[in-house]
């Protein structure tokens, strides 16, 4: 009873409302993109882009600029760089992701050691601080999420065909290079939004967990997308509530709730089989 009144009281706070709005929209985007990325074995691109973004965030903090102004264009650049390396650098996609990711982390750590006084801020980007989301960041989450979901809806048929069989999609006359660029562009925007929610260390979990959980139990592609979105929403909302009540980091709580959902789905699948 006390917990319930604590919860109702908590929902009156603006920072909780902003956390719920921002987290939900980012969670939905991550889940939708996650289904395509996981099935195309590109799920670690989120991890790579998040780690790479440590470099621009570190640089921005050092120069006293709002980090997202630098992180967004640099993450977009990194996403295209990964595609280019994989296509023309004669290397597999995972190697390209690992390479770009390592460069970002190395530059980020170097900047942190050279600078002084911004290490605490950098720490908040490593592990996320959703309860500190500002009005502007909440609005940015909503607007960018609408953009991401709109573009995915417009390219749905092409993305589906390419996810199942990219070569066949090319034969159909689909410009697979353009659609791949759209997918990684949207992923880089979403990852940057997700850094505020769970931090660079855990943002890829928002992309991977809801997708793999849905893939355990669903049949049909649209159902998989809907189920992944449902798991993402449930995990973000319950993670934030758990963080508020138990006084634990929200980012970690969201990931742990996701893990519980995954284990339940995995158990259900095994039980049915």
């Amino acid at each position, binding site marked *: 009873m006390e917990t319930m009144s604590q919860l109702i009281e908590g929902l009156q706070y603006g920072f909780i409302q902003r956390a719920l709005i921002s987290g939900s929209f980012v969670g939905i985007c991550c889940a939708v993109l996650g289904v395509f990325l996981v*099935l195309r074995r590109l799920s670690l691109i989120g991890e790579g882009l998040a780690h790479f973004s440590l470099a621009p965030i570190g640089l921005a903090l050092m120069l006293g600029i709002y980090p997202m102004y630098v992180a967004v264009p640099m993450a977009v650049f990194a996403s295209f760089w990964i595609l280019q390396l994989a296509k023309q650098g004669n290397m597999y996609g995972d190697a390209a992701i690992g390479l770009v990711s390592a460069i970002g982390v190395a530059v980020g750590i170097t900047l942190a050691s050279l600078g002084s006084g911004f290490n605490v801020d950098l720490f908040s980007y490593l592990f996320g601080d959703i309860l500190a989301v500002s009005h502007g960041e909440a609005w940015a989450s909503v607007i960018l999420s609408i953009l991401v979901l709109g573009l995915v809806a417009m390219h749905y048929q092409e993305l*589906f065909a390419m996810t199942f*069989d990219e070569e*066949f999609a*090319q*034969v*159909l006359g689909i410009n697979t290079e353009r659609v791949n660029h759209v997918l990684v562009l949207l992923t880089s925007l979403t990852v940057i939004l997700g850094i505020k929610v769970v931090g660079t260390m855990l943002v890829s979990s928002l992309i991977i967990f809801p997708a793999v959980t849905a893939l355990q139990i669903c*049949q049909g*592609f649209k159902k998989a997308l809907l189920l992944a979105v449902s798991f993402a929403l449930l995990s973000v909302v319950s993670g934030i509530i758990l963080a508020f009540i138990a006084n634990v980091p929200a980012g970690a709580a969201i990931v742990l709730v996701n893990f519980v959902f995954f284990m339940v789905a995995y158990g259900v699948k095994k039980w049915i089989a």
Partner: protein
Amino acid sequence: MSIIAAENLCVRYRQSLALENISFAIEPGDYVGIVGPNGSGKTTLIKTMLGLLELESGSIEIMGKPVAGFRQWQEIGYLPQATTIANKAFPASVAEVVSTGLLGTKSFPRSLSGRDWQQVAAILELLDIGQLYGEQIGNLSGGQSQRVLLARAMVATPAILILDEPTAALDPETREQFYTMISRLNREQGTTILLITHDSGTIGQYASKMLYLDHSLIFYGNFADFCHSQAMSRYFGDSSQHLMCHQH
């Protein structure tokens, strides 16, 4: 007018010349068996026809248009090599997979209508797999997967059907059914068939023309001429030659 025509075609693949001075003309309604040793450039040839690989020199035209400027991709159905569904956990129904074959007929954003889904159901019925409409793609056997992917290639009723070793993963009975089905399409609907195969015992029963490739073109012409050519005995051996020509 030839439906596909190649003139002095040269294609480089991974820094070596995979196809050298290939010239041939395929007429509408032909059933062409494409044969040759492993690594002889058969798949490279069809990928070049499909615009997936660039030409080093020469030309290739589909329906009178150079492949680089060809836009009527809905006229071509393609069944790629090694079509066993690799990811058994892919969350798509048979109908969803087959429907992608219609996307070449659509302009962006390529939305599908109720009529399109009826067309998907109709092609599944035609291939005797109507009952698989809502089945998950990962639950199918090798033979069923093959038919589903053939349905995907055929759903837009293409004028040309290009099949890359379609029977490699099939048991003898399913293989026979598959060949019969393709032959029926060729006869009854006039679909031009290009079929890559190592299946020397069977192709002779169905193909009207043979294209024998070993980086350069060794033979292209009617099956009857192929039967008596040196190319035939060189590739298939004397015993298979006798068997194939007898069956044809």
